[in-house]
C-alpha cells in the first residue's frame, strides 16, 4: 500500500497550519515526521485520520484519491493511529479494549463473540511478538504493555499504515528498545509507518526516511545514514541550534533547600515518596532522574506546598516550609515550573497578561488593595513576551492559542522574571520543540550562575545529563543513587532508573 498526501493545505483563522505539504509512505518503510510543536504535525495527522478536512490538496491510496469524513473512513481505508495518550478503558481486559467499537458478533441477536476475539488478539500478539495476555486487566499493566495494546487495536482493525504520535515519551530507556524492536517487526511484516517524535536520536535510529516540517511546510527530507542531530535540529528550527548546554562547572555555596526524611502519600495512600533526604545548594543544579511515576511528582508537589507531606521536613535556608502554602513559597522567592503545564501552570482560557501575573497578582505593582492594575500587568506582559521570545500576535490572546513550547516559555518567563532563590522545575521541556528547549536550558543555567539553587526533575535522561551538576536517581519513592553530573552516563543512570542498584 502506498499513501500519499499531495499538496495538502489547511488554514485556520490567521494561520496556515499546513502549506502544500507532500508526504508519502509505502508499505514496509518507516517515515519519520519531525517538527517543532506548532509546526503542523498534529494538524497533518488529523487530516490523514479524517478529523479535519484539508482546504486544498488530496489524499491518495495506491494512486486513487480518497476522502475521509471521519476517523471511521480512515480506519476502513487501513490507516491506524497510536496516540500519545492511550485510549483504553482501565477496568476492561485487553481483549475487551481491543474489540471496543468493532466487536465480532455471532447469531441473529448479535452476541459478542469474545472467544473469537480472544483468539484473534492472541494470534496478533504472537505474530508480531507483542507478548500481551488477552485476559489481563488493563489497569494492572505497565505503560509499555498498554502501548502494545494500542498497537494490537490498530492491527486488529487491519491497518496497513500506522501512525505513532510521540510514542516513546512515556517509556523507560529499556522499554524504548523493546518498542523499537516491535516497530521494526511491523515494518518487516509490510506495514507502512509514520513515526512522529521530537527526539532527534530516536529519529535517526528508527526512521528510513525523515521529513522535517517547519511552520506548516516540509522544509527538507533526510536520510538517517547521512543526517546528524545537529543538521536535523537546524532544519527543524531554521537556524543552528546548540544541542549541548554550555555551562561552566558549578560553584555551590550555602544550602538553600534541605529535604529530610520526607514521606509523601499519593491519592491512594501509598507512600509515593519514602524517606527521601537531599540538599540543593545555591549555584548548583541538582537533577532528579527516574522513570515517571516513581514519586517525583509527589516529591515536587510536597516541596512546593501543593500537597502536605506525611512526615519529614523541608527547609529553605533556616525556615521550615514543610507545611507552607504556595503563596508563602512565592514570597520566599521560590520559582516553580510545574510538571503539567496545562493543569497547574496555566489557566488556558485566560490571556497572557492574566497568566503572567497568576501568582504575583496579589501584591504591588499589579494590585493595590483589591484593585488590579491591569495596565501595569499589561506592561509587564509585553516586556516578558519580548524578553522571553514568546511567539504570539498579542498579549491579549488566550494561553490556549500558544504552542506547547510557547506555553512553557510563558511559565518560565513568569517564574524566572522575579528574584529567584530556589527554582524547582519539573519536566521543564516535556513535549516542546528543540528551539525552546535550548532557550529554557540556557535560562536555567543563567539562573544558577546568578546564585539560584536549582532542582530539575525530568524523566528525559538527556536533559538531566545536560543540565545537572549532581544527579539523584529516584526509584519507587526512594533516592537510590547519587552521581556527579560530570561522571554520569546514560547507561548507568538507565540501570539505576530500572532499579538495578537496589
Amino acid at each position: 500500500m502506498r499513501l500519499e498526501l499531495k499538496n495538502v493545505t489547511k488554514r485556520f483563522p490567521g494561520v496556515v497550519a499546513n502549506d502544500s505539504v507532500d508526504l508519502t509512505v509505502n508499505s514496509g518503510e518507516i517515515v519519520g515526521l519531525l517538527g517543532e510543536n506548532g509546526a503542523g504535525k498534529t494538524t497533518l495527522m488529523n487530516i490523514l485520520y479524517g478529523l479535519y478536512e484539508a482546504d486544498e490538496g488530496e489524499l491518495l491510496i495506491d494512486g486513487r484519491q480518497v476522502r475521509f469524513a471521519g476517523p471511521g473512513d480512515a480506519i476502513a481505508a487501513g490507516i491506524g493511529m497510536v496516540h500519545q495518550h492511550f485510549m483504553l478503558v482501565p477496568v476492561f481486559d485487553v481483549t475487551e479494549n481491543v474489540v471496543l467499537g468493532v466487536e465480532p458478533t455471532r447469531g441473529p441477536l448479535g452476541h459478542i463473540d469474545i472467544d473469537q476475539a480472544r483468539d484473534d488478539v492472541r494470534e496478533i500478539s504472537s505474530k508480531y511478538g507483542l507478548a500481551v495476555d488477552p485476559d489481563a486487566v488493563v489497569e494492572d499493566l505497565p505503560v509499555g504493555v498498554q502501548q502494545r495494546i494500542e498497537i494490537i487495536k490498530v492491527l486488529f482493525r487491519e491497518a496497513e499504515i500506522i501512525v505513532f504520535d510521540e510514542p516513546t515519551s512515556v517509556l523507560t530507556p529499556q522499554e524504548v528498545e523493546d518498542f523499537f524492536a516491535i516497530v521494526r517487526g511491523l515494518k518487516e511484516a509490510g506495514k507502512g509507518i509514520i513515526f512522529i517524535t521530537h527526539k532527534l536520536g530516536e529519529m535517526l535510529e528508527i526512521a528510513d526516511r525523515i521529513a522535517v516540517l517547519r511552520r506548516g511546510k516540509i522544509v527538507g527530507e533526510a536520510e538517517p545514514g547521512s543526517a546528524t542531530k545537529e543538521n536535523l535540529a537546524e532544519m527543524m528550527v531554521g537556524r543552528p541550534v546548540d544541542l549541548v548546554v554550555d555551562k561552566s562547572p558549578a560553584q555551590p555555596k550555602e544550602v538553600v533547600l534541605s529535604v529530610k526524611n520526607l514521606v509523601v502519600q499519593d491519592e491512594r495512600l501509598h507512600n509515593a515518596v519514602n524517606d527521601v533526604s537531599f540538599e540543593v545548594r545555591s549555584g548548583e543544579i541538582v537533577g532528579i532522574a527516574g522513570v515517571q511515576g516513581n514519586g517525583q511528582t509527589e516529591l515536587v508537589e510536597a516541596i512546593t506546598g501543593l500537597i502536605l507531606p506525611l512526615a519529614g521536613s523541608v527547609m529553605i535556608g533556616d525556615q521550615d516550609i514543610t507545611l507552607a502554602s504556595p503563596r508563602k513559597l512565592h514570597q520566599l522567592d521560590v520559582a516553580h515550573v510545574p510538571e503539567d503545564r496545562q493543569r497547574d501552570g496555566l489557566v488556558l482560557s485566560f490571556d497572557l497578561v492574566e497568566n503572567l501575573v497568576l501568582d504575583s497578582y496579589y501584591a504591588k505593582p499589579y494590585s493595590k488593595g483589591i484593585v488590579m492594575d491591569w495596565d501595569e500587568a499589561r506592561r509587564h506582559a509585553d516586556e516578558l513576551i519580548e524578553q522571553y521570545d514568546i511567539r504570539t500576535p498579542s498579549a491579549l490572546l488566550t494561553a490556549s492559542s500558544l504552542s506547547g513550547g510557547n506555553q512553557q516559555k510563558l511559565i518560565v518567563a513568569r517564574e524566572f522574571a522575579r528574584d529567584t532563590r530556589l527554582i524547582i522545575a519539573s519536566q521543564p521541556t516535556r513535549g516542546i520543540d528543540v528551539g525552546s528547549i535550548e532557550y529554557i536550558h540556557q535560562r536555567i543555567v543563567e539562573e544558577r550562575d546568578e546564585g539560584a539553587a536549582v532542582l530539575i526533575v525530568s524523566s528525559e535522561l538527556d536533559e538531566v545529563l545536560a543540565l545537572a551538576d549532581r544527579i539523584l536517581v529516584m526509584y519507587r519513592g526512594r533516592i537510590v543513587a547519587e552521581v556527579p553530573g560530570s561522571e554520569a552516563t546514560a547507561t548507568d543512570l538507565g540501570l539505576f532508573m530500572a532499579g538495578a542498584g537496589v
Partner: protein
Amino acid sequence: MTQAPEVVEKPEGEGPPSWLERVAPRDIDWRSLVIIPSLAVLSALIVGAVFIVFTEGLDAILPAYRALFSGAFLGWSSISETLLVATPLILAGLAVALGFRAGLFNIGAEGQMTVGGLIAVIAGFSFDGLPAIVHIPLALLAGFLGGALWGFIPGLLRAKTGAHEVITTIMLNFIAFRSLDYILKLPGIQAEGRFDPISQPVLPSSRLPRILAWLPIDGAGGLRLHVGFLVALAMAWVVYWLLFKTTWGFEFRAVGANPHAAKYGGMSVTVAIILVMTLSGALAGMAGGNETLGVLGRASPGFTAAIGFDAIALALLGRSHPGGVVLSAVLFGALRAGGRTMQVQSEVGIDLIVIIQALIIVFIAAPELVRAIYRVRGGKETGQLTRGWST
C-alpha cells in the same frame, strides 16, 4: 517588530469544563452575545406561534404578539412594568452569573431570595420612626445579609466537605420555603387579625420609593418602577468591577476556569468558593428584599414567584456577563409585562410566556442548533473532536 504567529494547534489538557466555557465564556464576541440570543428569541417566538395556532388558531397570532409588544414597550406604563419585573431578575441573575464565573452552579437563588426577602420585611416593619434615608438601606442590607447566610452554608459545605452545591442549594431552597411558611405564622411576624401565613406590612419609611412619579404625564403616580431598579443597575456594575477589575474577581475566575492552576498560583480555592457563594446568595437576597420592600410590601408564602429559577435561565442567556444579565432580565421583564397585556387583550394566556422562555433557553443551550438553522458562521468548528482524543 511583529513576529509571525506560530501555528496555533488545538489546546490540549485541562481547560475550563466545557459547560463553563459555554455559560461563562471568556471572549464574548458579538456573535455569541447578540446574534445567537436574538435568533434564539426569534426562534422561540416562531415556535410559540405554532402553539398559538394549535390552541387559538392562526388568526390569534398577530393580535397576541402585537399585545405582547405593546404591553412591553409602548408607553411609559409598559416600560415601567417591564423594568419593574426586570429588577429582581437582574439581581438574582447576577447572583447566578457570579457563581457560574467561579464554576459554581447556584440553584439556590430562590431560597436565598426567600430568606433575604423575609429578613428585609422584618427589618422593614421593625424599626419604627427611622427616616427613610436610613431605613431603606438598612432593610436592603438586612435582605443582603439574609441571602448571604443562605449562600454561605452551601459554600462552606462545598469548600470543606465537597458536598456539591447543586444538591445543597436545592435542599436549602426547600428548607427556606417551609421555614417561611412557619415563620409567617409566628406572633410578632404575622399580620394582626390574620389567620393565614402573611407578614405584617413594612413601614412606609422602608418602602422603596417610585422613581417615575415626576413625569409630566397623566397617571405618573401609578408608575410602579422603584428605586430598586437603580440599585440593581448599580449592582450589575459592582459585579462587573469585582469580576474583572479586582484581585478577588481574578481569583474567582481562576478558580472557576482551573482550580489546579489557582492553587498553584497561591490562591485559596476554599476561600474563593465560600466567598462567591456568600456574595451570590447576598445578591439573591437583595432580589428578595427588592420584591418585598418595593412591590409587595409584605411577605407571603411563595412571594419569590420562581424569579430565582428564571434567574438561572437568564444568566445562561446573558452568558454570565453582568451586561448580558441586565439585557436578558429586561427581555424577560418585557415578556412578563407584555404577557399580562396579551392575556387581557387577546385570547392567548400568559402561560405562553413560560413556553417562550423555555424555548429561548432550549435554543440558547443548543447554539449549534441555532447556527445550523440560520447558517451562522464561526464558532467552534474545529477542536471539538480532537479534544476527546487528547485527554
